[in-house]
């Protein structure tokens, strides 16, 4: 079996009296898109910095692509988009990718090819000769993302990759992550945009006070009893009463009906039933417990303060 892309064992980091990460234990298998969630100050960025050797752990251990944390050779197969994406803004987009490719130790031809591909992918080809100084926040994020993918990494760390992006940019990031997943690349995603995480991640870890509170598969997370909203016309009283066999807690209110079903698998049957009773169905919407609700449930409304 391939080793985990990332593994940590009781990682701890103290800055003086302040404990940033108190004991982080997690394992991310290769090929997984892993979401790292937690309130501000929970130690997410410090954790990523320890994975990448930017910060030395006070205690604990870990491995990155099978090598101990801080191993130089392992970083050749790792991509990283830092939080705030601060880069040398006096470089042009082209020069920026050139320099970072050289630091990866990439050969000249391969680098030239990757540079063109990635500029195209993130939509910055027309701006390749412009200095990063003139870039908007969203453009910096795009070029930062290109930088993180230069070496076709086996593992990519994205620290808040969509925070500065407009909806088009966010969709781009989502597509890129999907593409990486299909290539078997492991993606470690630190994001506050839970809707993004919900769409892209296989598993998520919730951390609070520098500790993993819970790790869940996203599928199991959102399965279970689901509240369904139904917008329909021609709902006769007997049909309404018949809804009881599909779920409970049925409430009707001015053409909108809500009920709780056992799970998403009940929805097709419910729909067939309504159609067979000549009901015009306009919408049948499961109100899943959102990741946001779950986040607040797990982390608490105090934001981990």
């Amino acid at each position, binding site marked *: 079996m391939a080793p985990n892309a990332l593994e940590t064992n009781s990682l701890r980091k103290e800055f003086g009296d302040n404990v940033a990460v108190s004991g982080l234990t997690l394992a991310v298998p290769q090929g997984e898109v892993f979401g790292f969630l937690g309130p501000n100050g929970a130690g997410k960025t410090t954790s990523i910095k320890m994975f990448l050797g930017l910060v030395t752990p006070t205690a604990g251990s870990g491995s990155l692509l099978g090598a101990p944390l801080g191993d130089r050779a392992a970083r050749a197969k790792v991509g990283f988009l830092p939080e705030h994406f601060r880069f040398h803004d006096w470089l042009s987009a082209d020069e920026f990718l050139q320099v970072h490719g050289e630091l*990866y130790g990439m050969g000249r031809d391969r680098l030239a090819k990757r540079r063109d591909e990635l500029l195209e992918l993130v939509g910055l080809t027309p701006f390749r000769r412009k200095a990063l100084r003139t870039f908007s926040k969203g453009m910096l994020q795009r070029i930062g993302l290109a930088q993180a993918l230069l070496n076709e990494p086996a593992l990519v760390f994205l620290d808040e990759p969509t925070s500065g992006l407009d909806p088009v940019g966010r969709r781009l990031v989502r597509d890129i992550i999907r593409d990486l997943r299909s290539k078997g690349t492991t993606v470690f995603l630190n994001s506050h945009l839970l809707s993004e995480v919900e769409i892209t991640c296989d598993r998520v870890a919730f951390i609070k006070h520098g500790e993993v509170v819970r790790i869940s598969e996203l599928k199991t997370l959102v399965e279970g009893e689901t509240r369904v909203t139904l917008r329909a016309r021609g709902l006769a009283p007997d049909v309404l009463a018949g809804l009881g066999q599909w779920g409970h807690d049925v409430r009707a209110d001015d053409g909108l009906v809500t009920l709780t079903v056992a799970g998403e698998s009940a929805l097709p049957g419910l729909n067939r039933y309504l159609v067979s009773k000549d009901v015009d169905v306009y919408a049948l919407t499961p109100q899943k417990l959102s990741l946001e609700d779950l986040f607040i449930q797990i982390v608490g409304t105090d934001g981990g303060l």
Partner: protein
Amino acid sequence: MAIFTITRLTFLEAARRRIALAAFSLGIAFLILYAVAFYLVIHNSSGLPAGNIQADLLRSQIFNFLSLMGLYAVQFLTIAMAALVAADTLAGEISSGTIQSIVTKPVRRAEVVMGKWLGYALLLALYLVLMIGGTILIVRIVAGYTLPNVALGALLIYVESLVIMSLTVACSSMFSTLATGGIVFGLWGLAFIGGFVEQIGALVHNDSVVNVGIISSLILPTEAVFRRAAFIMTSPVVQSLGFSSGPLFVVSVPSSAMVVYAVFYLFVLLGLAVRQFGRRDL
């Protein structure tokens, strides 16, 4: 090689951020000023001796003095440039976060420090070639005079600038940009004053005062190395009297051991920068 990528990046930064431009234009402004002043001294001074061998000797003394005066100013400009370009290098990149995407590549942190150091060392070499070369050329064209041992003297001034640059890089690996600037100019000031103290001690034949100066030179050997350089480039006649005719009027001449010490000192500082940056949380 990552180290050369960093060196190139350092060069590019100096060029793009117009630091080099500012330093080089100031340098050229100085050379123009110097050329005009020197020309006026040679051609418009009625008191300049002429005629016999004795007068020629005196004239060459004056040219020697004026050349060293020019190099003294060049040395000031170089030190300021060394400290200014290097102060922000590691500290600035750490505080802005630009360092994060660099050191997470498969490079050694030591390569980052040494690449930057090499970049500044080359930049200073270029600057000194322009400035010392310009000064020497002006004197040669206007007065037909060349300083003795000028190549060796220039090399010593280069060592002096490397000492300041290495000190700046070392401080920048530990402290903020502002603190780095404060420490470097503070220490340089100390060495400068120490140099004067040593001269006064030597003039009045007071060994303990001389020792105070020597200790300040050990703390930062810049001033001492320049005085050694000035002594080497002084006319043999004056040199034989045991002091140089430079603007410092060097009475107490630092030995060549001080130069060896300075070279050792700058490599220790570079090692310190590598060590501190290597273990620092970024």
